Structure formats: C-alpha cells, structure tokens
C-alpha cells in the first residue's frame, strides 16, 4: 500500500490534504471535526490584530452553477477571523496539543510594519503551531487597509514582510500569493528573496458572480449594493494549475516548495497539482460544498492511484509533469494529429460537426449514403481538438498522431524530426537551425 504521509517544510501530516485558511478553519470546533474526518492538516483562518475586524451582516457567498445546479465556483466577501486574537491562540494551542500528528499552520495578516509582525509572531510560536502562512492574497476588505493582496501585488512588500518574519520567528514561513497580478513569478521570486520557505497559491480571484436583473445590482447584494469577492472552486483550477507551473518551472524559483490551492475537489485534482511540483495541497471550497467527509475518498483514491502506478511515496511523483510544461514556441511543429471518430461509440449528436462547420475548419462530414454519419475530412482537419472537446461521449473522438506519409491538408511530408517556431522560416526573429 502506498505511503501517503507528507512532510512539507519539515511539517509532518498523515496525508498531503490540508484545509486552507478559510471559514472551515476559523475555530476549534470545525478544525476538530476536520481532524476527526481525516484531514492531514489545516491552515488556521487568518489572525489579525485586536480589535477584531467586523464582517458584513449581509450575504458573504455567491455561487456559479453548472448543469443540475452543480457548484462550479464560489466567491466570498468574508474577511479574516473576526474573533479575538487571544481566543484563536488558545484554541490553536489546545488543538495542537490534542492532535499532535496533524499539521497546524497559522495564517497571519497584520499591518505592513515590522513592529506589528514582531508582536504577533511570538504569540503564534507559543501555541506550538507548525508554521505560519502570510496572507498576501485576500482580495477584498483587507486590501483596502493596505493588507492582503495590497501587499501581495507589490513584490518589494512581499520580500520585505517575508524577511521580517524569517528574522523574527523560528517557524517555517509560507507566503500565500494572490492571482490578481500580471505575472505570478515576480511575487514568488520576491518571497524567495525574502527568505520564505515556501509559497502557497492561489488565493481567490477578484470577481462578481452575477447581476440581479431585477435590482440591477450584483448578486448577492447587501442592501442593494454588491462588491467584488474572491472567486474559488473547480472553475479556478486551470488558472491555479498554470500559476503553480509557472513558479515550478521558473529557473529562479526552481525547487521552492509549493503548497497548491485552487479548486482542488478530488484526489485526482490533488495529484495534478503535485505532478506540477506542489508538495502538498490545500482545500476549501470542496469541503464547504460537501462537508469534511470528502477527504476519505481523497485519501483512498490517492492510495489506489499510487498503487496502480507503483508510486510508493508522494515524492515519487511530485514534479514529474514540470519538465513537460513548456512555452508555445518550443512546441513541436512537426507533430501532426488528425481527429478520429470511433463510429461504435458515436451517438450521432452532430455536435462535432456543427462546431467544426460553424466555427472552425469544415473538417467533419455529417452524412454518408443519406444517413447521419460523422467523419473527419483529413484534408481539412488541423487537429485542433475542438470536436473532441465538445463531444459528449468520452474517448469517442481522439487525436491521432500521423507517423509518416503526407499531411493531406498541407501536402507536406510528416517527419519525425522536432522543429519549432524559433527556427521556422516564417519567424522574422528566427535563429539559425542547428
């Protein structure tokens, strides 16, 4: 059986599944329930200075749905913990004492002054917590006060605060990054420069979930007004995957430990992030949507998958996909694929046909001998994968590489040699081929 025990910055947990700093980790009651359910660790909801912040008394969450009202994403306008600092600290200490095998990292957000950090760090250290996470990501409420993403969006501040923390505590320091920036590599590099032990990402994305067309106001609203909130859940996973990959493959931050966050709902999502270099993962929305029990399947699904693939430990697969993420100009232009429709699997809905006919390359025919029949016209197919993407039947349409002969679309021979844009004759900035 696969060993899924995790060690992240020396912090041990029975599995790599932590709950992210968020409402589910705001107090002892919830965290204990999470540990009972089997979560490997938590990042305690962000602590700030007293007096505690106040939350609005209107709705805090909005949602976006797919078919059958399946939750695709949340956004929220909740702030950091609104409970007294001392109460949180006492509960953290108690839970850590009661659950010594679980990871407890404490999220922090105090004003951008060294004194403020110096005040709070010893208090957290005293709880016996395993580490701290700097909340540089929260996109609402706190940023207007010069905290959260207001820090995370300025690499110099990220570096400065990370350095203050490293200088004033023995605890490992994780810097949580905001996605509300142009290039996530800059704050990641800054965190590393400041001495941070790891980055965690992504925090939530600025968003308005919907407009109520009767009120002509954002939905949900508080007394008729709405504001942007932080977007999370399955819908943000592709954005998070890219940002994690950007940091994992950046030569400047290569090897910097990553705790991945962003729409992780299943064991498979977690494995994908870890394959892109994340040492562990943090989950919030999925737990808020379905409860803590989902971790049972995450644990078992991960173990079963590792057994199937003969990975004994987490480190055996962490980062394996990183070398296969590249920049567009290095993609092999000599790799030619054609769509293939499995006629036995095809249910003849015609979605591939109309997608290609209306919006792409007119590369699928829709009739044969007067009957509905969908087939790819190789002479028109550019291998774009649109048809396979819209097909409702999994694996009915596959993209098959040509291994020789001539591409009937271009009339060019299909060759095995790798060639990319950097040496292409059409590239005005091409470099001479070797």
């Amino acid at each position, binding site marked *: 059986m696969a060993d899924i025990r995790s060690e992240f910055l020396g912090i041990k947990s029975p599995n790599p599944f932590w709950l992210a700093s968020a409402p589910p980790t705001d107090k002892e009651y919830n965290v204990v329930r999470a540990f009972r359910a089997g979560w490997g660790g938590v990042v305690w909801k962000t602590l700030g200075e007293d007096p505690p912040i106040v939350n609005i008394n209107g709705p805090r969450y909005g949602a976006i749905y797919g078919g059958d009202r399946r939750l695709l994403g949340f956004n929220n306008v909740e702030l950091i913990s609104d409970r007294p600092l001392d109460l949180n600290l006492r509960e953290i200490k108690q839970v850590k004492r009661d659950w010594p095998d679980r990871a407890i990292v404490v999220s922090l957000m105090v004003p951008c002054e060294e004194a403020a950090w110096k005040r709070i760090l010893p208090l957290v250290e005293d709880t016996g917590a395993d580490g701290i996470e700097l909340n540089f990501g929260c996109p609402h409420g706190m940023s207007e006060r010069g905290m959260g993403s207001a820090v995370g969006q300025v690499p110099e501040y990220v570096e400065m605060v990370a350095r203050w923390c490293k200088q004033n505590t023995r605890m490992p320091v994780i810097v949580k990054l905001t996605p509300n920036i142009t290039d996530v590599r800059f704050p990641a590099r800054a965190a590393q420069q400041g001495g941070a032990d790891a980055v965690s990402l992504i925090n939530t994305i600025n968003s308005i979930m919907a407009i109520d067309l009767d009120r002509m106001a954002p939905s949900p609203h508080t007394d008729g007004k709405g504001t942007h909130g932080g977007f999370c859940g399955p819908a943000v996973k592709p954005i998070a995957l890219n940002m994690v990959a950007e940091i994992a493959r950046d030569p400047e931050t290569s090897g910097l430990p990553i705790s991945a966050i962003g729409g992780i709902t299943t064991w498979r999502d977690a494995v994908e992030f870890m394959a892109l270099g994340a040492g562990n993962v943090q989950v919030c929305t999925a737990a808020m949507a379905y409860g803590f029990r989902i971790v049972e399947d995450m644990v078992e699904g991960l173990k079963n998958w590792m057994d199937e693939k003969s990975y004994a430990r987490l480190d055996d697969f962490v980062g394996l996909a990183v070398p296969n993420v590249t920049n567009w100009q290095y993609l092999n232009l000599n790799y030619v694929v054609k769509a293939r429709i499995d006629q036995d699997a095809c*249910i003849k*809905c015609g*979605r591939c046909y109309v997608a290609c006919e209306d919006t792409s390359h007119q590369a699928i025919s*829709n009739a044969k001998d007067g009957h509905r029949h969908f087939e790819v016209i190789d002479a028109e197919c550019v291998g774009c994968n649109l048809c396979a993407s819209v097909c*409702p039947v999994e694996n009915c349409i596959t993209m098959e590489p040509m291994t020789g002969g001539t591409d009937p679309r271009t009339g060019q021979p299909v060759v095995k040699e790798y060639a990319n844009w950097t040496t292409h004759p059409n590239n005005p900035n091409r470099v001479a081929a070797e």
Partner: protein
Amino acid sequence: MSQNMADIAAGRLSAAEYADNFTDLHTPLDDHQALIEADRCYFCDGAPCTTACPTGIDIPMFIRQISTGNPKGAAATILRDNIMGGMCARVCPTETLCEEVCVRNDAENKPVKIGQLQRFATDKLFAAGAQIFKKGADTGKRVAVVGGGPAGLSCAHALARQGHAVTVFEAHDKLGGLNEYGIASYKTVNNFAQHEVDYILGVGGITVEHGKRLGDNVILGQLRSDYDAVFLGLGLGAVNALSLEGEDLAGVLDAVAYIADLRQAKDLAKLPVGRRIVVIGGGMTAIDIAVQTKRLGAEDVTLVYRRGREHMKASAYEQELAQTSGVKIKYSAKPARLLGEGGHVRAVEFEYTQAHAKGERFTLEADMVFKAIGQKFVAGPVTGGNDVLELEGARIAVNNERRTSLPDVWAGGDCIAGGQDLTVAGVEDGKIAAASIDRFLRGDTE
C-alpha cells in the same frame, strides 16, 4: 345475482377512487425537474428528434430555451410548428417518435423526456395567459374549414395568422375533435382540450358554426361557391363492425362512443360499467377503453387482439400501461361469436389464430363488450352530387400539399389516405394545407 343478468352498475367506486383513477397520468415536471431534464439534452445538430416529429418542432431549441430560463420562448418555438403542442405533449406516442430516436438512447438507454418538457413549456405559457400569435392583415379572402378537430383547427389558426377570414363548421357542441371526445381522460385532465381550443381561437379571425355536419346541413358545393377555399378535416365518422353473430345484443358497444360519453360525463360515478369487460381490438382506442373501464371499477377487463404483441398498433408503453392498470391482454385470438341471454350479451367466444393452437376456442364471460377494431371514413358527403373527391383506400386522396382532386379543396387529418391517425399528424396536415391554401389565395405559382 342471477347468472343471466348482466352486472352493469354505476358508482362502483368512492369519490376519492374516481378522482385518483382519473388524475393526470404523468405528474407534470416542476421547475427544478424540468431544468435537470433540459440539461440532459445535447442540443444535437440536425437533431433526430426534430426529424422524427411529424410537425418538425425544433426540439433542441425549445429545450435549450427551458434551460436558459426562457420558457415563453420555448413555448413559442413549439407552438409555431405545432399549435397543439400542449395536447401533443400529452398524447403523442413519444416513445415511437421523438424520444425513440433521441441520441441519449445510444448513450444510456434513456431518452430526454421530450414530451414532458414540451408540456412544461406550453403549460407555463397557458398558465401565464400569454397570447403569442396575432391575426394577419386582412386579405379579404374567406376559407371554410369543415371539422374542428386537430387538422381543422391547425389549418384555421395558420390561415388566420395569414390574414384570411376563416369559418369553422363543427357538428358537435365543442371543438377539439378527438382531443375532446376521444383521448383517454387521464391524459388530458382539467378540461385541457377546451383551454387549448380557446387559445387557438384567441388568435382572432376565426368564426365557429356549431351543429353543422357536412352532407347534412352543410354541402360541399355550397361551400365551394361561398368561400375562396375549403379545408376538410372530417375525421372518421363510423366504426368497423365485427360482422358476427350476436353483434346486435345489448351490451355490445362501440368503444369510441363510450369514451366520448366518459369524456363528457360530469360525474363519473353516474357512468354505468360492467363487472366483466371484454375489449376487442389492438389500437389506442382498445387500450383507452380497457384502461378506463378498469379505472371506472370493472373487476375483470380483458383485451383480446387477433395478432401478436409486436403487431399491436398500441405502443409497448401503452400495452404496459394497460397491464399495470390491471387489464389482461390476450394476443392471437379473434372473436368467433357473441353469446347472449335475454337479449343481452353474456360471453364472447374466441378462436386462436396462432399456428400451434389454430382453431381452438375459448369463451370469456362479459357484461359489456367493446368493439375497438378501427374506424372508417364516411365518404358520402364528398362523393355525392357534383362535387366529387377522389378517394384512395376509402379515404380522401391528397397530394403532398394536402390538395384533393378538386382545385379549391384541401383535406387533412384522419379522413385522408396515408394518415397516421395521430393528433400530431392532423396538426401537420392542417399546417401544410394552410400554407398551400395561402399560396393559392395569393396567386403564387407553385
């Protein structure tokens, strides 16, 4: 009870039982159920369901409109192609039409519930009372429509939308044809047929004359001279006979007539029904009479069909409905004679038709026997006098525009040759004929 006295009685059930037995066959989808079901539609290109629909409703579009929160648009999409989309949602044999070819059958053996979604959309529109059609600008042309059933009303509605003045001649007190007098009660509860008629007439420009029967107080020749065009949606005016000994015994009834009485009954408890019922036939009418007499409280209902299950015109779904309602279906037997006592039927003797038992007989005791072996067209009114229509197989011959052999007379619905004897087919006939009549009246060359 003595052996020779037929057990026929009204009020066999409690009021609650009647209500329960004749409630809506399908509970309508609520908003949530409709959304879930609508999400199952793949929005196929060149969708097979649309091809299979006799009226060519753009089914993927109306389902998409339900899922986007545009039920009014969904209803409009349906009604533009099929003005009786509400009734068809209730009575169409969807399992042999749109739903049979749904690609979800290939995917998971479970089609999208198209009929129920269609009902959801049209019910919403009718409940909102929104009239989405209006009469066209007056063309000064006048069209006579004979018969206010699905074909006639469909034709009248389409002509009114084009601005032609339409007069509907109807023999009965109510419009709707078999929607009103024929279809099983639990398929069209709460007087839906009349609500639909009201909606259709709501377009304006349609005058109705009740109590007018062709060949009786309306003559084809007169209509041809009084109007610019004539559409005949006459239906089938007579039922086939068994032509057997004992057919004239009391208690041997036409299913069609009894169903009409049932549909018009204000109080089902006053409708007499036998304790033991034998139904002869294998179509929808046979199923409808069998199920409804069972639901009226008959103890034993046996439907006897002369051929095998697979030949039965009633769909597998309808057969199952009968069986789950407690009707016994016997296949491969034909009636040999009806036995009576004191002038009233008491039993039917059947003869097996299948090879291994051919000629062998059995007898079913019966207090009531229903004949449901098909209806036939009464051709007299269109084959006498100077205005003679060509027939084909004893029904009116038409071309693909539903034009008869007379240049200013069209026909559709059950009275024409080659029809499917379905509400939806009648609606399509009316629609096609109206388009042809409109071209004719505007002098377009064809």
